[in-house]
């Protein structure tokens, strides 16, 4: 008897499904219960044409090409709420959402705002399209002067990866200056890369530009290898996530800490220096990539508790259930697109929660947040007196 192999060209759904298996724990996509928790917890799930649960159903039904014809996947802010709540622990954010964005991007289905942020990152190493030469301009006037490794050529204990927004954004530069003040007060021997630093690339990766992420990571990796330091710290949870979890895959591996971890480690030395009282009710917003993704919940709160006068209250969404500020996964560069779809901003929801809990200060630990929440306060009548401060800014203030 002659048997004939039936030739079969795999459909897009099949190829895509197979590609998900390559993601860590990707085989778990087969274990989806279709419980719908992911779609329900997703802050924008209610307006997606295909929220995550339906996307998985679409894959199984061999109809994923329908998902590819829509653009509401760009509402995903990569906040990990879906992956965190999933009873089958399916890597929904890292696998499904990010891979879908990659395919949309390759097919040219990219909102124009996001396109320019990606082009800027390619060309200038930062999404804002600022001059790389001006990356350390924020350090002007700081005493003692901030060490720039390429210029000052000396080994340091701590390499501070400053990141895009603290380097360039006029509001977030205050956070960078505050961290410099705190590090100087602690007598830390630290330095920055200045013009040689490139965007960490993590948000570009989560917005579907894997190749760009790799390019930026390789550039940073080459620069890291030029200098002598013991560990890296960063105030940016996205940079922290990249350096801790993604760069090692590309053989770029250094000990890394978020600045709140680093400062919490120095709490005994820091506490006596915090003499200036800040009489305020403070609520802390857990950044997605510090809290939910990397499990750092206690250190930021420990630092706030060390400030005399501070009373901490928790918002209804806190710790691992924290609500995204809306800036992740490319959301920072999709403001107009997401506004058109939702006529709401996640940052505004969050500000309402802070007001409801009676806070005067909304404390944050991610550079996306001060401008996002301050804009949200302007849009929200009842939030008049609420002030947004990075934890590091509060510490710098308490130093007097």
């Amino acid at each position, binding site marked *: 008897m002659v048997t004939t192999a039936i030739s079969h060209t795999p459909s897009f759904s099949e190829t895509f499904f197979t590609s998900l298996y390559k993601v860590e724990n990707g085989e778990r996509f087969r274990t989806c219960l279709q419980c719908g928790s992911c779609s329900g917890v997703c802050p924008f799930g209610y307006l997606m044409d295909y929220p995550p649960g339906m996307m998985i159903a679409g894959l199984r039904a061999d109809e994923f090409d329908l998902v590819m014809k829509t653009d509401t996947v760009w509402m995903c802010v990569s906040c990990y709420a879906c992956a965190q709540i999933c009873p089958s622990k399916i890597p929904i954010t890292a696998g499904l959402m990010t891979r879908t964005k990659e395919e949309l991007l*390759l097919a*040219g289905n*990219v909102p124009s705002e996001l396109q320019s942020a990606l082009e800027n990152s*390619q060309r200038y190493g930062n999404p804002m399209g*600022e001059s790389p030469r001006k990356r350390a301009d924020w350090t002007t006037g700081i005493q003692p002067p901030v060490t720039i490794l390429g210029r000052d050529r000396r080994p340091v204990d701590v390499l501070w990866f400053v990141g895009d927004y603290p380097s360039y954004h006029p509001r977030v530069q205050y956070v960078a200056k505050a961290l410099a003040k705190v590090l100087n007060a602690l007598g830390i021997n630290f330095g920055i890369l200045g013009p040689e630093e490139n965007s960490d690339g993590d948000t570009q990766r989560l917005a579907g530009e894997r*190749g760009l992420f*790799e390019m930026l990571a390789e550039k940073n990796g080459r620069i890291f290898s030029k200098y002598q330091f013991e560990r890296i710290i960063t105030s940016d949870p996205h940079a922290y996530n990249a350096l801790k979890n993604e760069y090692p895959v590309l053989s770029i591996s250094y000990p890394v800490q978020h600045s709140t971890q680093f400062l919490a480690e120095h709490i005994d030395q820091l506490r006596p220096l915090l003499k200036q009282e800040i009489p305020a009710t403070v609520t802390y917003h857990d950044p997605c990539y510090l809290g939910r993704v990397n499990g750092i919940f206690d250190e930021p709160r420990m630092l706030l508790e060390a400030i005399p006068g501070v009373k901490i209250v928790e918002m209804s969404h806190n710790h691992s259930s924290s609500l995204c500020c809306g800036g992740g996964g490319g959301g920072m560069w999709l403001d107009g697109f997401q506004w058109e779809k939702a006529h709401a901003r996640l940052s505004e929801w969050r500000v309402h929660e802070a007001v409801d809990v009676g806070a005067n200060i909304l404390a944050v630990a991610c550079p996306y947040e001060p401008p996002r929440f301050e804009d949200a306060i302007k849009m929200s009548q009842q939030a008049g007196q609420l002030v947004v401060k990075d934890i590091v800014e509060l510490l710098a203030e308490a130093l007097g």
Partner: protein
Amino acid sequence: MNIIVPVKLVPDLVEELSIDASGTALDTAWLRMIINEFDDHAIEQAILLKEKTGAQVTVLSMNIEGVDDLLFAAAARGADRLIKLNGDFVNASNNHALARAMATLIQDLKPDLILTGVQAHNDLDGSIGPRISNYLGMPYVGYISGVNISDDKVIVRKEYPGGLIGEMQVSLPALLGIQAAEQPPRYVAISKVRQMMKTMSIEELDLATLDSMGAPVVNRMFQPETTERATMLSENAEDAANQLVNIFKELGVL
């Protein structure tokens, strides 16, 4: 259909520009180059035409730092053939010299349609398009924001001041100065550009000696200079009148 797209790199204005020691040119030491925005649209328009008609698209540019990235990115968008032109661009890179040298070379490529950016911010001696078309004896239409090909003709949309659009027919071969492509230039994923770097090759062609005859000579290039500030007169009419009388007296006109 053979579409040729000559493009150029121009100084990127994200960096502050400085003048070199001669005082007649930009200091190139810190210059970062970027594709001329209008040329970027010309490439996009060529690719859109390729997608509609199956035309072959050749992108060519001067061989200076950054040209490879420019050409590979064009390939990732769909360009079929990449050419870089060798020449002494340090001493002669004005449009008079370039047009003269490029015309012969473009002629050899047997173009049906040439698309180029309508202008560039560093065109000190007029845009290059009309000059090339003159040497090639082809019709030129500039400020184009839409192109449709039918047989040996193209129908173009030309922008006029005040938001007016003219539609006109141009016989081929022709050269069009592109103001805007029908769609904004598309995004090219880095992975696609990297793939092109592995699979595509860039041809090199030598330009004949660059002859700047006819181009203006730059006597002095300088940063905007602050002139004397204006003096604000009082808002009170009486005082203002007195101030004016004094000023006129000082100037000797009263």
